[in-house]
């Protein structure tokens, strides 16, 4: 597990964990649990949206 590994897999692993938290949290309860779920599940959407829609300046 070297630096390169984390550079490639760090973000995917983080997003995977957040997605999992988001999917499970709302199953366990309502109210706060739903809010946690929305934030956690929002992470992959936000990251995907940010990197695919941003335009680099040339």
């Amino acid at each position, binding site marked *: 597990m070297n630096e390169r590994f984390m550079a*490639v897999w760090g973000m995917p692993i983080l*997003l995977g964990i957040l*997605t999992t938290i988001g999917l499970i949290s*709302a*199953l366990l309860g309502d109210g706060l649990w739903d809010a946690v779920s929305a934030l956690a599940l929002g992470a992959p959407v936000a*990251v995907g*949206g940010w990197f*695919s829609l941003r335009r680099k300046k040339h």
Partner: protein
Amino acid sequence: MSNQSLRRWSWIHKWSSLVCTVFMLLLCLTGLPLIYHHEIGHLLGNDVEAPALAPELAANPPRANLDDVIAAGKALYPGKIMMYMSQEIDEPAIWNVTLGDHPNDEHYKPIAVDARTAKVITEPAFEGGAFMSTMLRLHVDLFAGLPGMLFLGFMGLLLIVAIVSGVVLYAPFMRKLEFGTVREGRTKRLKWLDLHNLLGIVTLVWALVVGATGVVNTLADVLLKVWQATEIAAMLEPYKNAKPPERMASMDAAVKTAMAAEPGMQVAFVAFPGTPFASPHHYGVFMRGDQAFSSRLYKPVLIDAETGVITDHRDLPWYLTALLISQPLHFGDYGGGWMKFLWAMLDLATIAVLGSGLYLWVKRGRKAKAGVKDSVDAAQPAQPAQPALARTGESR
């Protein structure tokens, strides 16, 4: 990763995706309106609302006798028999009653009956109206019944293979790139390759979960048949030579009996004799808990349809519990409005992954024609004019 294994994984990724992509696009497109079926039903005027009660009643709404609720539905279709009656967890004022010509009638009549006054509210549009019904059938079974369901389940398995092989290929593609790099200004194909990798990896866990739970859902009918052949059959052992019930016991009394047997639980739905959720001799009263998680799980209470006495109540077997838990995880209907929105966004991202994958395959480019698999382009340094995937296949 060696060139050979890279080539192997590319082959797996290419073919598993190619076979399922068209169907997955269809499922993503039809799934989108299904996420918002409540809102669409509201817009189309197909949703059912319980009428307001007189103020003196509204404070403490009465509960109508269930036998009167059933009678109200039956009065509309005297020739038909009861199949199911159910309540949504957030709408205790309505009983959804279904009547059919026989216990497995696919063209059943849905009727909404006021649970407080036992008056018919309306006959709701079948499966939410023509549009939603078409979306649902395309999504569930392609209008082809059980074979269609199982076929889509198989396509879902291929999707899982495609996702896993895609993850394996992600590392060699990203070896020298920062996360989220989208190389613009070079070839269009390169940009879409980067977007494919980016959106594929961010939707990874969601797509795996929705794909896998979708596969489980396609097995619903099969699992139900297994349950009937094993547990229901065991519960029916004492009824081997019994004639079908002649006189039906009071449903109101049966439900009260069931609620007394399972305190703290609510009735989710009642299956009438002969339906897949009951037996020819029983009412199947399916109870659910009142907590976020327990409300997803059912506990069946089987009640003799002639005597109204409890025959058996037991927990669902693990495979039906798995089915019930897989449903919310597939539908995204358990976390409120934000979850629905995120479900729709992830669905759109998946459409982009599928579409870009197809595009990348169509635009394999000159390399493919030259007989070199583009995704496994070997260790040679790229020619300046063709920088596209030169970095991908270097052996370690």
